[in-house]
């Protein structure tokens, strides 16, 4: 526990993310009396089940030093597949199919990126459109929907006051991914190629493996987010879910992940998503027009940007200070030697 705290305090961005989310929560808890209730907490977790996953998907890519614009489309595609197949095949099989498609798409992107050595953002601009169209085709340009709503009812039932099967699964996924990223060789390889790709390659890391794993993971998370959305509402649309990209990216950055790659983690992703959820949920009670919600969300992001810029400047100052300090302490003894040796 205490070394957990140590870790947090060491990571400035993360601790700021935590502080920020705390502030947002407290603000609403004070201004909205019902906000601090397990009903709301339940709702927040329900929303977390979606946004958190997308945030996680993006966080993984960003840790690998890349960014995946296609997750919104990937989610929509998976949602359409799952909803369409649930009636004939039953939810479990449908989910397996949908998720494996999303994961496969992710893996393929990862492979292409590693093989051609192009930036993910370049290729995913294209796949964003492509997948969007494919989803639309599979949905036959209509809204696909369930006839039997037992599944939606089941995954939204309350368990242990705060959770639903959906949110519990998502939390489980978070834990698994977290363990994978931090404690396995493959997870560490993803951090490595993100933080310092040249060094990583010199150290003998094969670029393809971590790249494919990272994008497969993010594809899976995106797909799962789509599945949750689709099965909760019992319906899915090919054109839907584009907003996930923005929301997820904001969540990821608010979670303190560094766009330079190699930093940040699952914990940050979770906190980022929660912060954004606090905000959105809180704003619902003010029944604001849509654009205000967007406005406030971006303000949140800007706060983070400003902080990170400032802390970067501060860091470089500190680095110089410490350098000069080490020099000054080496100074005396060495200069002493010089005097004695050269008599100058």
């Amino acid at each position, binding site marked *: 526990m205490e070394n957990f705290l140590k870790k947090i305090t060491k990571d400035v961005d993360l601790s700021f993310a935590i502080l920020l989310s705390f502030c947002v929560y407290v603000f609403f808890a004070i201004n909205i009396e019902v906000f601090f209730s397990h009903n709301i907490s339940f709702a927040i977790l329900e929303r977390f089940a979606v946004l958190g996953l997308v945030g996680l998907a993006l966080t993984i890519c960003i840790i690998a030093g890349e960014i995946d614009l296609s997750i919104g489309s990937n989610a929509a595609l998976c949602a359409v597949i799952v909803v369409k197949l649930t009636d004939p095949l039953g939810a479990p099989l449908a989910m397996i199919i949908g998720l494996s498609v999303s994961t496969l798409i992710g893996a393929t992107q990862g492979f292409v990126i590693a093989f051609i*050595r192009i*930036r993910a953002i370049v290729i995913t*601009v294209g796949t964003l459109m*492509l997948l969007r169209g494919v989803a*639309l085709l599979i949905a036959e340009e209509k809204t696909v929907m369930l006839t039997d709503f037992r599944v939606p009812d089941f995954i939204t039932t309350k368990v242990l006051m705060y959770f639903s099967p959906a949110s519990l699964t998502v939390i489980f996924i978070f834990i698994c991914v977290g363990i994978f990223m931090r404690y396995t060789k493959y997870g560490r390889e993803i951090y490595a190629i993100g933080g310092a790709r040249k060094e990583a390659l010199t150290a003998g890391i094969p670029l393809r493996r971590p790249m494919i794993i990272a994008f497969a993971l993010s594809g899976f998370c995106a797909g799962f987010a789509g599945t949750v959305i689709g099965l909760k509402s019992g319906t899915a649309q090919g054109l839907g879910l584009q907003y996930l990209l923005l929301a997820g990216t904001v969540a990821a*950055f608010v979670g303190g992940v560094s766009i330079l790659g190699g930093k940040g983690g699952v914990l940050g992703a979770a906190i980022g998503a929660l912060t954004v959820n606090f905000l959105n949920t809180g704003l619902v009670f003010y029944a604001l027009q849509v654009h205000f919600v967007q406005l406030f969300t971006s303000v949140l992001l800007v706060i983070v940007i400003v902080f990170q*810029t400032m802390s970067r400047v501060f860091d470089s100052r500190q680095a110089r200070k410490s350098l000069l300090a080490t020099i000054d302490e080496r100074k005396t003894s060495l200069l002493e030697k010089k005097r004695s040796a050269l008599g100058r």
Partner: protein
Amino acid sequence: MSAIIENNQLPFSTKFLQFYKDRTLLAILLSLFAVMFIYGIFFTENYLTITNFKAIIRDAALYGIMAIGLTFVTLSGNFFLLSLKETASICGVTFAMGMATGFGSPDLAGNFLVSLLAALAVGVVSGVIQGYFVGMGGNPIVVTLGGAGILYGIGAWWSDNLVINFTRPHDAEWLGTGSFLGLPSITWSFILIAIAAEIVLRHTNFGRKVYLVGANKAAGKATGHENFSMAIIVFTICSVCCAFVAVAFVAQMDSAQSNYFSAEFGSSGDMTILVIATVMVGGNSIMGGYGSTLRTSLGAIFIAMVDNMMVLQGFNSGPRIVGVGLMIVFSIIVFGLFAKGSRAQE
């Protein structure tokens, strides 16, 4: 050691290719066109009509102009401006406000010049601010993502998120729906801006700096070309292009609304993504320092051609998005493969 040999009087063709030394990539782009043409000619009726080509270029014009602006950002190694459509949206609202209300002062209402300047000014301001943060070392993607939401929010707030109409006849019609020598003004704007941009990049010190800084920021600093001012300028250029597109579009619609450019339900999809895709399809290097606005313009026309052809083939929006998406992915991969030979992206 190689002796010094003057390259006196090379044949013109070589000169031309040296002029576009990225010959392979240009060749690819052109051959892609060829394929489209041939397919179009044989399998699509009234594809080869003048009107249709006008329509294609007309289609390409709007996001083409934005893409040219964005090309400056990308070439200078500052990745992307992700707030394209939001910038356009707020500038459009500004322009419409000017045309409709004259910003409160009735005698200014409908004054084209004032409204135009106001819109461009808004573009400049948002460009400078975002450019400043990037110049300070902020990451373009994050910064402009934040900028996006704020710009949209303000625009929607200001216009109370309603449609702002201004009635015909008005002074902006020549730009919106007017045409000259049979080509719509917006098409002319596209052509002129494309030429101007190409000249700036090839034949001015600024253009050269864009390439140099884009190719290597550190070396740029060492030779006295800082990215700080560069970032501010290119982001401003890009934002102004967005502003111009917004004005032209609003002038054509006689109305503006904060979500004109975010086609939530439009099958043509998200403007920002479309513009970025255009720059990529042009084969410009995302790492900067390599590419040209000419290629971007061609990219825009290329995308328009694909879409147009599929419309003529009678496809619904679904297959059309697939088709365009496929083409984009395909050309990006091809460019990637060839670029790997001459110059690795990393």
